[in-house]
């Protein structure tokens, strides 16, 4: 009996599904495929005509363009909205990328397979200390070829004409493969072996009261002479980096000789990173062992999210998008309202709703493409102008592509209010206006 009921119900469900398919889903899918086919044919025709040198622009595009460009003031207002929005988003995102890169620049340039860091270290600039004994314990672990100590600590740089500037002293053994200055502009690495020698970046000359090689200053009442000048090694904070050998760094920062900040682990050939890391972790009780990627991620995460800097950048970008969307929506809406009579005529002569909606979407797309082109030019100008500053704005191909998609999405979304207005239009108004 039960089986008969199940079979009967199953047959009923099948019939209902069949009815639903025939009455609703089937025709809907067929219509959707038909429409998609129609408009893809339009695009194909347009492209083939352009390629064949017969640029008869389809009227759906021409009508959209004419509607858009007809009121130049309104069009300019639309463009200003898009450009303002996208430049703001691109600057915020460019700063975000730049920030993300700058906070890991030291980690990127340190030739380490693994980092041994004091437990709880939040970022590269977090100057906790490890005991030198940890280094010897690490060196004893199987698979470790070397564990190079580096010291990171804040100090006061006393400029010759008075006043002090906080600096971040980076001490490393210059003869081991540790963290050494790169992008050398003047001088040689060997010159850092001269007593009191330090390396600074030329972008900090003014801040450090230096004119270049040979200038002297004091760090913690000890002489420091500029013997090496780098270019482009900048901190995202306003604190300049000062490179010097490890022992001198300890003297400048009053760090005991048996203390260090990090140990850069270099693995023996054929050693497995994860196995060595596990051994080091079980050996070193007061330290953490991270891969460079993990340390980069931790530093970025701290500066971008725990300090609120990233949230501020994202909030700025979001604000830009909202303002841009509102301006574009408002101008598209008023533009559509002005042309309602024409859209009613289109409906009266038999144009489908989809055709009219596409006219509005094409208007939005044209605004997006033109607005994006101007915004990109402005953004690249900002990139050029900020290139030599403490926090340059970065523009990558991925960011450009993302910004373009964002512009298109913003403009098409903004077209919704205009589309709703057009969908409600009564073709009979063509007779009454």
């Amino acid at each position, binding site marked *: 009996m039960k089986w008969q009921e199940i079979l009967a119900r199953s047959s009923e469900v099948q019939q209902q599904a069949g009815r639903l398919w025939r009455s609703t889903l089937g025709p809907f899918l067929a219509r959707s495929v038909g429409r998609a086919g129609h408009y893809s044919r339009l695009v194909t025709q347009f492209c083939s005509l352009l390629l064949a040198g017969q640029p008869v622009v*389809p009227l759906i595009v021409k009508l959209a363009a004419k509607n858009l460009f007809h009121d130049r003031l309104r069009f300019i207002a639309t463009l200003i909205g898009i450009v303002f929005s996208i430049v703001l988003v691109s600057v915020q995102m460019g700063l975000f990328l730049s920030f993300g890169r700058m906070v890991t620049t030291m980690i990127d340039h340190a030739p380490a397979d693994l980092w041994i860091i004091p437990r709880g270290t939040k970022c590269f600039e977090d100057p906790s200390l490890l005991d030198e004994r940890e280094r010897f314990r690490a060196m004893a672990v199987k698979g470790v070829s070397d564990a190079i100590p580096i010291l990171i600590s804040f100090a006061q740089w006393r400029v010759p004409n008075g006043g002090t500037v906080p600096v971040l002293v980076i001490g490393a053994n210059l003869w081991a493969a540790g963290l050494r200055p790169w992008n050398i502009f003047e001088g040689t690495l060997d010159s850092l072996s001269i007593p009191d020698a330090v390396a600074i970046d030329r972008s900090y000359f003014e801040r450090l009261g230096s004119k270049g090689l040979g200038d002297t200053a004091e760090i913690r009442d000890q002489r420091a002479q500029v013997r090496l000048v780098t270019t482009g090694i900048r901190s995202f904070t306003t604190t300049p980096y000062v490179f010097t050998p490890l022992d001198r760094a300890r003297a400048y920062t009053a760090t005991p000789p048996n203390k260090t900040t990090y140990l850069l682990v270099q693995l023996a050939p054929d050693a497995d990173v994860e196995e060595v890391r596990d051994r080091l972790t079980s050996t070193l009780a007061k330290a953490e062992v991270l891969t460079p990627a993990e340390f980069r991620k931790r530093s970025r995460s701290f500066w971008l999210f725990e300090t609120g800097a990233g949230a501020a950048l994202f909030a700025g970008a979001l604000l830009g998008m909202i303002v841009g969307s509102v301006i574009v929506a408002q101008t598209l809406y008023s533009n559509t309202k002005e042309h309602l009579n024409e859209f009613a005529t289109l409906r*009266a002569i038999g144009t489908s709703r989809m055709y009219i909606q596409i006219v509005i979407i094409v208007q939005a797309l044209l605004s997006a493409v033109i607005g994006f082109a101007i915004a990109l030019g402005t953004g690249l100008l900002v990139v050029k102008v900020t290139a030599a500053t403490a926090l340059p704005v970065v523009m990558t191909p991925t960011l450009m592509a993302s910004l373009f998609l964002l512009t298109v999405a913003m403009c098409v979304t903004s077209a919704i209010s205009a589309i709703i207005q057009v969908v409600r239009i009564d073709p009979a108004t*063509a007779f009454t206006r």
Partner: protein
Amino acid sequence: MSDRVIEAVNVVKSLGDGARKVQALKGVNLHLAGGELVLLMGPSGSGKTTLLSVLGCILSPNEGTVRICGQSTSGLQPEALAKLRLAHIGFVFQTYHLFPTLTAIDNVRLVLEVAGERPHHAAAKAMDVLALIGLAHKARALPLELSSGEQQRVAIARAMVGNAAVILADEPTAALDSENGHSVMSLLAEVAKIQSRGVLVVTHDARTLPFANRVVRIDDGRIVGEEQGAGGSPGPTDEVTAGL
């Protein structure tokens, strides 16, 4: 005259809701054959424009049947009605309703492109129709650069270009002077006669009477009279209709 291209049987249409509900059409019967020009005349508020909208598949009747080229419009959804309009009906509006930002040729080819015609084919056909009505030399002109008569002729070209079996014209001469009104009515009469289309003209204008095959009078939502007209284009064929 050929077969009926449009037919209304016992059409009832109410407009508005509640206390404002008005029965605009009260059982209207009307037909239009290919090749004839019919004038629909009546006082303001008699239901002329409502009837034109119902015959043009823009409004659906509450009762009764409308057939366009033999096809009933009963039960058709708005998009299906739009397709029917596009395929069979051409409209001429009192104030032309040309797209002010498009040239004359683009205004004409619009109907073809909406119907899916390739852009360059549509442009060629539109130019042919403009040439037929003597406006080829104004093909690249914007509506504002055309006289009222020329604008209405472009609107007629737009209604003709898609081979619509029916042309519905709403007060096509109301905004025109005597000469242009004569020219536009001549054109519509020739379109009916030579191209065997059915042309229904809603008008108050007595100057249009000599062009009609039939005159249908409507009042208070009912057809109250019908008479035979002069039956075609009076006087010599002018340069406007020479191409047809």
